[in-house]
């Protein structure tokens, strides 16, 4: 799920079909049901996509700076970089790909431990 905001933060946006609303500098997750107007605004640049995958908005807030950069490359377990250098979002994705059970409260350290136990390195 991607997060979006208005390009012109002095105004507001409301999709009359879905009711999706953005006011001022609000940032919201792109809804599952994307209306025609929302799609048109995304294409025209009126709505700006902020980040890549987001799992838990609260945790994402804690990991604030991770939201800003462009979407991270898909995780690869081919030894290009050590797991300890991965972002927490990448680690979560890797856990899901390997059917490792995770909870939103899992810290980076816990995720690394779970991956190690599962034999993913």
């Amino acid at each position, binding site marked *: 799920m991607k997060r979006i905001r*208005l*390009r*012109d933060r*002095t*105004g*507001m*946006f*409301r999709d*009359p079909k879905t009711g999706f*609303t953005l*006011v*001022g500098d609000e940032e919201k997750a792109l809804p599952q049901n994307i209306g025609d*107007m929302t799609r*048109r*605004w995304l*294409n*025209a*640049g*009126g*709505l700006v996509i902020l980040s890549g995958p987001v799992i838990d908005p609260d945790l994402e807030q804690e990991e604030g700076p991770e939201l800003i950069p462009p979407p991270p490359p898909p995780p690869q377990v081919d030894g290009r970089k050590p797991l300890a250098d991965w972002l927490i979002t990448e680690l979560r994705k890797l856990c899901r790909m390997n059917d490792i059970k995770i909870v939103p409260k899992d810290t980076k350290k816990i995720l690394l431990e779970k991956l190690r136990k599962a034999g993913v390195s």
Partner: protein
Amino acid sequence: MSGALGLKNSLYNRVIAPLQRYRDGEKGGKEISFIDFAATRAIDESGRHVGLKNSANEPITWQNVWEDLAIDPAQVSLDNLLTTSGDVKYLAPEIVRGYILKGLEADQTYLDLVAGVESVDSMTVTSPWLRMDDTNPEAVGEAETIPLADMVWGHKTIELNKRAKAIQFSDELLLRCKLPLLSYYLRKFGVMLAVDLYNEAMSTMVNGDQADSSDTCAVVGVASTSDGVVFKDFLRAWIRARRISMNWNSMVTSEAGAWGVLQLSEFANQMGVGGTVVTIETRNQVIPARMPHLISSVITDDQVLLYDKSQALLHLVFRPLLVESERIIMRQLQGTACSIICGWSTIDRNARVILDGTKAFSGYGFPSYMAPLV
């Protein structure tokens, strides 16, 4: 005065055909009702648009038309009109159209939001925009060059689209249902079309007419987010409006928003004797004496949209309301389709503002393009 106007055999040539040409979308059609057209622009034998006059030499009314055709509208069904000899059958779509128009113009409509209706000759309209900066006249010495104001201009593109719906009348309905009864149902059809147009106009008021967010409505916060939108927030907006030569004297709220705003003591209570000690007569009328109020679901419950009707929105019409009929013989149905091709264009971004009760004014002040002029 039956037959005095001679409409039974000349209705098509004198009124219907010129009316269809007048509404012709390819040349930028214009909206006009049958009776208004007949009264003002029906043609005479030499093809001049002179309009039809009744025996008192006044513009004709529907009553005059019925009398001339020797028809009692209370006793006639749509089928009677469609199967009558002569030109009378051409009246049927106009009657259907008239009833739909009545619904279209009932209650609050998009006409309450727009400064005017403009005919356009294309489905894609290029509209100019311009912004003037530094327009204050300056003191100029003798023979000195007059300084230029900065003017930024450009153009924007607005796409029009078609809205259409069809209804079918069975023969049983046409034969049995008299026109006055049918009118109520057709009026409802017009009301639903009007709702669709109203919602689209409201959406343009909020989002603007450009998908890149360059025309979106400004959002201004309130003094206290715990109180929401109260009178002093209106006051702040009205004062700024006067400083940018606007009259934000019309208001739109949601249903729940109306519940709160209409209970504000400044709007709910009579302010008679014992009110103010001095009645301030501000020259530019900061506080409006009356304020039209509309309700829309496009606005959230915590917001109030204020706008200047004369400078906010234009209704662009490529083809006005068109009512067409066809006979489906195998099913003995009379199909009627009505459609309109139109769009919306904002005029001045300063003409609309949203007061948002969940945002504080300290963080959501007036945007830079609403910088005071006076």
